[in-house]
């Protein structure tokens, strides 16, 4: 018997959990500012585009999105299980597919920004 495959995603889940715990509140804070109409200066088109166009900016955004989406996927798999839906393989395939799609989309759009 080898190590269960959960080990693969678990690492991403744990890293993503730590990352989101630290930064998601700030992120939501930014959305909150936007919602009140006070768009932060660097979220204006010019500045934000420039940030996302830089390789450092791309790298940062990608790492954040990548880890977050896999964190969420793995945790959702567990939640579904906890709610009594015991088709784990099916659920795992579904949530990880969505995560993979999210990863590809993030990469695609980031690369498209130049």
């Amino acid at each position, binding site marked *: 018997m080898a190590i269960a495959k959960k080990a693969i995603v678990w690492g991403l889940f*744990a890293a*993503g*959990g*730590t990352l*989101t*715990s*630290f*930064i*998601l*509140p*700030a*992120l*939501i*804070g*930014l*959305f*909150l*500012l*936007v*919602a*009140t*109409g006070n*768009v*932060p*200066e*660097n*979220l204006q*088109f*010019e*500045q*934000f*585009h420039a940030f*996302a166009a830089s390789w450092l900016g791309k790298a940062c*955004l990608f790492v*954040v*999105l990548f880890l*977050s*989406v896999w*964190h*969420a*996927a793995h*945790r*959702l798999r*567990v*939640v579904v299980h*906890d*709610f*009594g839906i*015991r088709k784990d393989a099916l659920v795992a395939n579904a949530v990880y597919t969505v995560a993979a799609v*999210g990863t590809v*989309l*993030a990469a695609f*759009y*980031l690369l*498209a*920004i130049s």
Partner: protein
Amino acid sequence: MSRRPYVREMSKTTWYMRNGRYRVYVLRELSSFLVAFYTFLVIYALSVLAAGSAVQWNSFLASQQGVGMIIFHGLALLYFLFYQTFPWFKLAPKAMPIQVGENKVADSKIIGAHYVAWIVVTAFIFWLAGVI
């Protein structure tokens, strides 16, 4: 001869209603919906950005405004802080205990360091965004 152990089944679908501890746990896990939501929101924002026009970006920003959004983000923020960020910090020393020499570093110190780091990170992001 006469054993007949009585098995009490746990309800697979409603077990978390049994006590407060379980409810808190499930609420914690459900924070993953928020993570997923915001992740895809940002990916969507990037797609708008990638389209390359300030007009589209501004109308995206405009679509994010309003009392409804304020309430939504406000609640999301509270939920996330109390059911994900703070519990995660509280649990951090369990997964990654630190031992210096003979003694374990007190959990409270590790947790405290997390809070300090969190404030720094948050400030950094706000600085990056040009808020401060």
